């Protein structure tokens, strides 16, 4: 029992947090409000799921926010271009184009990191600037707007369960990938100790590259979901989301040293952060104080988690 609590502390914290808030605030537990929190979460949840893979290998991907914006913009531009020529399937092709560009970013960043031996922090920082710049160049700095009606479904304003189902599907898929496949075990092994992973025959370079590709692909998808939800693709969108994604992973129990963490934990971390912001707004806590509060809570939660793990002997000294 103790072991279970220590291992799943993010989920426990989330459950306690929700019950407490629901008990104290009638506004929070209104179905309308829960729906909104639910459809705000996928953008970050999907991003954090991908980020978890990279963090598990001991890396970090700072480019996810920019890649999301670039993907959203490419998706939007493609849809607009096809609509104006009244070509069929513009939404599907647009989404595919956005995902393709995101994947390309992941390939470049992953290649530089895995084969070029550039630290992930640096290569993804570079990709963060490149993708942001590309988004600004493509749009000339002007947000893209005016999509066909059917594109609005993805974002959840017509049904919160659509993006939420996508997110849960992705979380489930990645969890299976990590726990039940060779690739998943390799990801944990690389983060645990890349030397011994290599010596035991794991294709370290290849797998390291793959986590960046998957992470960027998911970031791209998150960007498309955000575009659909807000109904506008701004080249400056999703700025700072990379840090929220990393924070969510860490709150969810991932270690930045690699080898430790779960996708479900990252999802819990994302939910905790979304609930906190929603709560602050409902309680009329000013924006400035929200930042201080959320920042402090991130540190406090992680400190508590670390303390718990150390006590139960789960943490390597």
């Amino acid at each position: 029992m103790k072991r279970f609590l220590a291992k799943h502390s993010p989920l426990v914290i989330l459950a306690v947090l929700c019950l407490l808030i629901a008990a104290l605030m009638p506004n929070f537990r209104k179905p309308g409000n829960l729906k909104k929190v639910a459809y705000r979460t996928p953008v970050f949840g999907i991003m954090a799921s991908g980020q978890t893979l990279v963090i598990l290998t001991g890396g970090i991907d700072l480019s996810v926010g920019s890649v999301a914006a670039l993907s959203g913009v490419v998706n939007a531009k493609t849809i607009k271009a096809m609509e104006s020529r009244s070509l069929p399937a513009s939404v599907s092709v647009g989404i595919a184009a956005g995902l393709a560009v995101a994947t390309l970013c992941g390939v470049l960043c992953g290649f530089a990191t895995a084969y070029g031996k550039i630290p992930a922090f640096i290569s993804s920082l570079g990709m963060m600037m490149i993708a942001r710049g590309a988004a600004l160049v493509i749009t000339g700095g002007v947000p893209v707007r005016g999509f066909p009606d059917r594109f609005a479904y993805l974002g959840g304003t017509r049904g919160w369960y659509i993006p939420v189902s996508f997110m849960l599907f992705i979380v489930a898929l990645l969890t299976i990938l990590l726990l039940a496949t060779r690739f998943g075990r390799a990801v944990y092994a690389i983060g645990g100790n890349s030397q011994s992973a290599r010596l035991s025959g794991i294709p370290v370079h290849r797998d390291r590259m793959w986590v960046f590709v998957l992470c960027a692909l998911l970031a791209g998808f998150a960007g498309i979901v955000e575009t659909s939800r807000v109904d506008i693709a701004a080249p400056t969108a999703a700025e700072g989301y990379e840090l929220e994604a990393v924070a969510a992973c860490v709150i969810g129990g991932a270690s930045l040293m690699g080898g430790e963490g779960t996708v479900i934990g990252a999802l819990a971390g994302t939910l905790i952060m979304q609930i906190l912001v929603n709560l602050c707004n409902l309680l009329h806590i000013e924006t400035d104080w929200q930042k201080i509060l959320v920042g402090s809570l991130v540190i406090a939660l992680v400190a508590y988690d670390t303390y718990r793990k150390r006590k139960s002997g789960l943490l390597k000294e």
Partner: protein
Amino acid sequence: MKRITLALLSAVLVLGCGKQAAQSTDPGQGTASGARYTIAVIPKGTTHDFWLTVKAGAEDAARALNVHMYWKGPDKETEVVKQLNIIEDFITMEVDALVMAACDESAMIDVVRRAKDAGIPVVTIDSGVKSDDPVSFVATDNVAGARAAGQELARLIGGEGEVGLIPFVKGAATSEMREQGFKEAIAEIPGIRLVATLYSDSDAAKGMNVTQDMITANPNLAGIFAANEGGAIGAAQALRADGKAGEIKLVAFDASDEEIAALKEGVIQALVVQNPYKMGYEGVKAAVDHLEGRPVEKRIDTGVTVVSMENFDEPEIQNILNPLSK
């Protein structure tokens, strides 16, 4: 050998960066050979229709007055440091005058002083700085504009009820003045109560989230004032998503395509429209007047117009809404 390669590589990188910074000052289309002056126009952001309209005005003035114009600003209105660096680079380049909209009314005081000390006059447009150094401040009277917005919202909700306010960035002069003007107007009407103030950071996604939270926290909300384009787009999208369009009245500043579409759709009931074209034009003109020794007024008001579906089709209104099609 390795070390030399590394040194060369870093040298190339450093040079490359320097070059890029100088090149990215994109000369305006108003460039004419033998231009009399070089003037840098620095907006607060480059991605909103509002700033593109300012640019159109500035370019037209530059063309008419035979001035070479640079246009460069930060991507986002919150990027204070980036704007500071851009202005510093223009001081280094020794342009003849600066026309700028300050991302922060306090943070830019010092750099404006340094420009003045270097003999470069500064004209502020749209968002000023808290000092006496600028030659002129060419802008909407934001307090008066927001007061008009408050009165319009009061009229729309029938003079009583709860209202919410969505300013954009705390500490930015324009945002604070609109907050002040709106609150002044509301305070004069006893039946109206301001129940929530949440910031959009000029971002549509953030604006949408805070609007939804505002509606959840205040079930009796009758009206919202969104103080700029980003917040307005987000608020409109939130009202659509919640099925509250038309039920909760929305008054917004500015008039981007998206906002005008929302007005026609009935999600936004009234727009308080500034004249960004005039700001760009008059800003450059004030700088040139000063350079040529003509007297320039310290404060030039460019005015606001309240646009609703009632007056939408009037030619005068259409002219203000579509300056880019001129």
